[in-house]
């Protein structure tokens, strides 16, 4: 019993990973858009589980809060209002297997290019830490990773963080402008 539970605990990442892949496959394969969103939601929750299995609890919770709780709700909101049973919309959204295959191949190549080192290279002997180690003083980074992330964001990487939020703001204003001009 003890051994069994320990084995499960050690393989939590793999279990959640396989479940996330299953959710993603369901999302791609299902015919109804709302079912796709459900599959996507399941995959997002499982990815949060993967983060938890890696002891990155802050990332896991942020994953649930931002993706499962925010973004996928908006997806659902849009998808619910689109009647997918009409033939024209089916042609637009569901019968594009040729393009889909090309897109998947391109995506796979890009993924391999970016993550080649991570997947096939030697493992990094040293865990990633803060740029300035003195910031982590008095902090058990392994256990308090919310605090560690906050110090990284608001001390080490403050400027990139602010620039990123300005970019998001620009995108938001742009969306408002586009939506407004259409109505006039």
């Amino acid at each position: 019993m003890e051994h069994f539970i320990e084995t499960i605990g050690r393989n939590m990442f793999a279990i959640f990973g396989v479940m996330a892949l299953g959710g993603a496959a369901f999302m791609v394969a299902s015919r109804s858009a709302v079912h796709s969103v459900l599959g996507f939601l399941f995959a997002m929750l499982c990815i949060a589980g993967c983060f938890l299995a890696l002891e990155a609890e802050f990332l896991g919770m942020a994953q649930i809060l931002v993706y499962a709780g925010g973004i996928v709700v908006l997806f659902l909101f849009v998808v619910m209002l689109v009647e997918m049973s009409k033939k024209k919309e089916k042609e637009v959204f569901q019968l594009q297997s040729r393009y889909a295959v090309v897109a998947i191949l391109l995506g796979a190549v890009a993924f391999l290019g970016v993550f080649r080192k991570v997947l096939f290279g030697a493992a990094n002997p040293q865990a990633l830490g803060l740029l300035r180690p003195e910031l982590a003083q008095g902090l058990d980074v392994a256990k308090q990773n919310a605090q560690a992330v906050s110090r990284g964001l608001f001390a080490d990487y403050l400027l990139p963080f602010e620039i990123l939020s300005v970019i998001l703001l620009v995108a938001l204003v742009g969306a408002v402008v586009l939506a407004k001009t259409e109505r006039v």
Partner: protein
Amino acid sequence: MPIPTLTQSIVITLIQCLLVVIFVFVVVPLTVFAERKVLGYLQQRLGSTRVASGHVGVTGWMNRGMWKWGRVPVLSYWRGIPGLVADVLKLILKEDVIPAKADKFVFFIAPAISMVSAVVVFAAVSFVPGVFFTFPKWFPYLGGLPVSGGIADINVGLLWILGVASVGVYGIVLAGWASNSKYPLLGGLRSAAQMVSYEVPLAISLLAPVVLSASLNFGEMSARMAVGLPFWGLVPQILGFLIYLTCGFAETNRLPFDMPEAENELVAGFHTEYSGMKFGFFYLAEYINMTVVAALAAGFFLGGPWLLPFGLQGLVNPFLPAFLKWFGEPHAIFFVVKIIFLLFTYIWVRGTIPRYRYDQVMSVAWKYLIPMALVNLLLAALVRCFA
């Protein structure tokens, strides 16, 4: 203190889960009963009194005498309690109707999502700091092991609570969509808009305790909010409590914000097409969500397992005489009493304040609650900085 093995700790966690489920399933039916009774008395009637039998029948017999004397029978407070059993039996035995054009899978899974996301929040709630009780030595397998006051008092408890609570929206939205009928769809859409908007001030109002206590762990937060704050911490606490409670009413779809099921406009909102135990799950989930919101309000603002609310306990504690020390320490019973008082407040508000119009609901959230919550956050930051 002995250290539990892996299997033992899992068994202990299961026992904790069982305790929480028992707590929920005791509190929820009593809240349903209290809702009928308290609303009744607020509106100068008696509430449910009809279903009464056996032991309760004695009070009924005495009541008849009191009616004859021309007095309102005081003993009828508890009459009607067997009606709860009748309600549950009705929900379980009723035919489970699925509309012909419904999306069967989504229709089936929506109440489950509602229910699960409501219950799972309790994982991060800590009822009492430290050890809740220790198993006696003679207990088989678990003898001498401590049971902590929360199931998983994790480092990011608050984020877990907010995240899982936001997953609860899916239950309502999907139920509205899967019913394939216009009133549920309208109810689902309204509720999605309402819950997404009220999550913003809710989260900001909970940021004030985070700033004041410098933690995201439920147990640590409630401890520091109750006994670790300077005097000026009172102001952001009281303001934050009022904002949080308002948003909590909206998040749980209670009056005066019950847009998703506004009876006079939308029949019954998102659960119009549901019957039997599937409807029962939505009903249960609503009341469990009320309990969750009450638990958070009690934990963060009303001092959690300590007696006095708003951080007063920490100010009073140094002056407590020795024979009153018991009142200066944390006890699970204080926490539960606060939750029950807040549940009463829900019913009280429902009986007192009329419903908002839909546009008013939205303007309350975006024009008033969010700025107020931001000001409150600023106050909390000032307190943390200077006091």
